[in-house]
């Protein structure tokens, strides 16, 4: 069993190496084949033809952060739901209602966020 699990993730490792090799190969191919010419304005950031003012380290609105927090909550919930989903029929009624309570609490959290106006994109 252990070796079988290991065997599967060997393929994952090789897939990752393959992906890296493919991108690196394409970039090296580009390095060999492409022309290169230095020019004064080539390295200027593209901004529809205007010269950019300042750097782009602009501040990002707070609402992105709130959505990220909400995402974190529900993503962790999903991680808990997967093992439950494949075993709740064997565990029976009790396991189902426990999960209903869990989902209920999180749904209440979503409702609270909704009421507070977090979900409104202003």
């Amino acid at each position, binding site marked *: 069993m252990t070796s079988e*699990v290991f065997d599967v993730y*060997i393929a994952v490792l090789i897939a990752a190496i393959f*992906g*890296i090799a493919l991108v690196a190969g394409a970039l090296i191919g580009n390095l060999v084949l492409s022309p290169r010419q230095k020019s004064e304005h080539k390295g200027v950031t593209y901004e529809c033809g205007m010269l950019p003012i300042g750097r782009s380290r602009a501040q990002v609105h707070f609402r*992105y952060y709130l959505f990220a927090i909400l995402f974190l909550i529900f993503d962790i919930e999903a991680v808990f739901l997967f093992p439950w989903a494949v075993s709740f029929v064997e565990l029976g009624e009790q396991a189902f209602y426990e999960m209903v309570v869990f989902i209920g609490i999180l*749904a209440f959290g979503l409702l609270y966020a909704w009421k507070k106006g977090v979900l409104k994109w202003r």
Partner: protein
Amino acid sequence: MTFLLADNVWLDALLRMAIVGMLVPVGVILLTWVERKVIGRLQQRLGPMRVGPYGLLQGVADTIKLLTKEDVRPDSADRPTFELAVFVIVVPVFMAAVAVPFTSDIFVRNMALGLFYFLAVSSLGIVGFVMAGWGSDNKYALLGGVRAGAQLISYEIPLILSAVAIAMLGQSLSLYTLVELQDDTPFIAYQPLAFVIFVIAGLAELYRQPFDIPVAESEVVGGPAVEYSGIRWSMFQMGEFVSLVLISALASLIFLGGWIWPFSADNATWLQVVLMAVKTSAFILFFMWMRATVPRLRIDQLMALCWQILLPFTFLQIIINGLVLVYEWPDWTLTILSGAAAIAMGTLIYRVARRSGVLYQTSGATQRVGSVL
């Protein structure tokens, strides 16, 4: 595992990945041609016609052009982030391809946690978009990158939870087992609501129209990819097309019965390949059709659709599944409950979309202007 291409597991994995690695560029070149042709025909144009018969070699010509193009990087860009972003976008796509079986024989690895692994790995690409947006030192790219982050993480949740609904029905996370359970009836018949949510969320995960807010040309001129040129840009394209194929393949595996339905479990290999190819291309063509038909959503509409409509309905689907499976109600109750919920969701989306416009007084009548529908 049915057979090994080589005795050694390392060599076997290497050979299988080599086949995938060869198919991917060819597939991507072909798919770009298909997409341009399909969109062209839908807009009553011919699409590419010049290079090769019916423009078939257009993709090859584009690849050569991109490969021989100068690699321009802004002077002020953050070099490591800028260069690594391409890898972070492409590598997870290859890793996700490991878990997706194409027929009962043709797969890289048959994972016991295939569904979970696929969803986990395919969401890694989000980091790449944020990195590309931040590393480019471009205001449009930054905006696009942050939007990509917000959109992709939001739609991740309905996508994952509709997959949870399928896992509940099949009591398994192995894609192989889930397909084998669908020899009579595909899961779409029991889970119409989960199917609709999965397709909408999948479309948003692929950031294709109508969900192309992160890369919208008319808003953020290409989003995170704006500073990438030549072969680097084509890596973005490759990531997008391979995930298009993978999401389509996943949808046909878990909802349409993969290589089995509508025939029996011991189909001949050629029949399995044909079945999967037909189902996967149907999804791909549907995604392309959407691109040519539906106008782009606004970002507030996008977020509202995800958090206020799709997410509560996914919870509803999970509760319905739980009730029916725990109390062992007959299968058709699942169809009816889920179907009714799907119709309710469709009606709700329709009504909200109708309401989104502004009332506008013309001579005599009041008209609604600017609604999504």
